[in-house]
């Protein structure tokens, strides 16, 4: 076990997401969420054995699937379960303030953690239609906390323009962050406390208590503060004590490979990111 062991960005990313899950909490992932799906199953098998694990829309309680499929609503995801509920019961739990964590992403994300999963343009004149937030609009308001993840932090250059995922302002707010276009969470009487962690392929972030804005906390071994700043449109807060994230153990990575033999954890990345490897 003292030999050197190579892991991919996909595995390290999963661990980063899993670390936002605490034991003895209720956790749900939505649709189009391969990374949270792997991270939740991983957490349930490692540090969060008493987590109440809702396996997506399939809504099995504590499933023990033989492998993880590329779609969240397949019979694979109800195998080895303790019980079945219907998905509306998970939303009830959330609306009662008892769903501890979920995971959301967006094509655009602002500094307060608001996310656009709906569209660029207007409903009447829609330029780009994204899939829609599924349960995100409600759950981002209701969950005790949630984790934002995206594998597309890196801005894209098209000609001389730079397109950001982390934008100054979302064209449309689907899922709500700490300060919404309609006011702060407490002004809106929302049940939940909003996003507390953001995991991207460039770093891990929390939110500054005072300004409620995203704050860089951890870097990957191969990313720098300026990488992160360059790829973020809004002004990013950098924690005075930014560190390189802790690496997972070999045993942990082996769990990930075992539960995800199809590699669905890799589906979310632009091709080039997957060449990022780390030695532990």
């Amino acid at each position, binding site marked *: 076990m003292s030999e050197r062991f190579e892991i991919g960005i996909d595995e390290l990313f999963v661990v980063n997401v899993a670390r936002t899950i605490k034991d003895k909490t209720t956790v749900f992932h*939505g*649709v*189009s969420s*391969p990374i949270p799906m792997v991270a939740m199953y991983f957490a349930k098998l490692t540090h969060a054995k008493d987590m109440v694990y809702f396996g997506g*829309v*399939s*809504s*099995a309680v504590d499933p023990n699937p*033989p*492998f993880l499929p*590329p*779609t969240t*609503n*397949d*019979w*694979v995801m*109800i195998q080895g379960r303790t019980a*079945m509920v*219907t*998905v*509306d019961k998970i*939303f009830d739990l*959330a*609306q009662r303030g008892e769903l501890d964590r979920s995971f959301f992403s967006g094509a655009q994300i602002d500094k307060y953690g608001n996310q656009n*999963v*709906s*569209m660029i343009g207007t*409903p*009447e*004149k*829609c330029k780009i*239609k*994204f*899939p*829609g*937030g*599924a*349960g995100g*609009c*409600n*759950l*981002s*308001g*209701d969950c005790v906390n949630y984790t934002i993840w995206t594998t597309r932090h890196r801005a894209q250059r098209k000609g001389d323009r730079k397109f950001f995922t982390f934008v100054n302002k979302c064209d*449309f*707010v*689907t*899922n*709500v962050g700490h300060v*919404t*276009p*309609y006011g702060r*969470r407490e002004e*809106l*009487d*929302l*049940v939940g406390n909003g996003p507390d962690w953001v995991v991207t392929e460039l770093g891990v972030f929390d939110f500054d208590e005072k300004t409620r804005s995203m704050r860089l906390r951890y870097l990957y071994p191969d990313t720098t503060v300026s990488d992160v700043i360059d790829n973020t449109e809004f002004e990013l807060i950098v924690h005075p004590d930014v560190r390189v994230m802790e690496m997972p153990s070999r045993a942990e990575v082996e769990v990930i490979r075992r539960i995800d033999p*199809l590699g*669905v954890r890799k*589906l979310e990345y632009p091709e080039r990111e997957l060449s990022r490897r780390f030695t532990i």
Partner: protein
Amino acid sequence: MGVFTDRNKLVTMEKAASMINDGDIVAVGGGLCMREPIALLRELMRQGRRDLHLVGTAHGFDVDFACGGGIVGAVQETHVSFEQDFGLAPNYRRACETGQVKIRENCCNTIIMQLRASEFGIPFVPVRSIKGSDEIKLHPEFKPMIDPFTGKKIVLVPALVPDVAIIHAQKADIHGNLKIMPPYVADVLFIRASKKVIVTAEEIIPEKEMIEEGPTIPYYETTAVVEAPFGAHPTSCYPYYAYDREHISEYIKSAGESAEAFKERYLNKYVYGVKSPEEYLEKIGGKAKRDRLASWKESQERWMELFSYE
């Protein structure tokens, strides 16, 4: 909603489709790539139905296909995609971006609560969480108010009453009792919230056998039943078959190219030109395909293979 006491509700696919009208609000059962009433959608396309208003939670093949087939006027689902499996829904996107389809995007719990209001026979329910989201812009019918009990902000959302729910069940009997196997997603709610319930079923079984199994849905809640083996294809209908990744991959290729390519290479081949379920089965690969999609139960390896196949 609605009470249906006919002893024999068995109808043809043609007849079932004719019970759905242009402009109807339609709740489509299943979700994403699972247990969606696709054979019925094909028949609606053949009959030239128009301007359907689709409602539901997180969907995929069904909504995209219906948009591509030109039968949709508005979409009030919460999410439409092929997840990271095949990504964005090409026909749905195109329909939204060209204005062919009106965007009425909603959120899962909101729509569940609106359907519950219909099921419970009450005009509205309060929802805590929509506030802060621009989704409220898509729904001028929602009414913000101050909760008179707690003094807190709340939003009243009206009952959503689909004209018809279309559901693909594993089993039905001719009286209309249904056996649906979990996950139900929102099917049970759709059935109880809709004015009519049209069911396609993988198998029609004797009423006696159904009663022994214990119906998921009692007969009086269903309007009509169609025998439709492979009726959810290319979405899954376990335990009979997994989803047909090969077929969906072919679908995505033409749909992703253009509306014309989709019509020519997909709709003409699999919808308009097809006279019978047998012919459809032949076109998608016949018995070999059927056997392959049923092979998930043989071993973990076989099951995994079905998710790798393109």
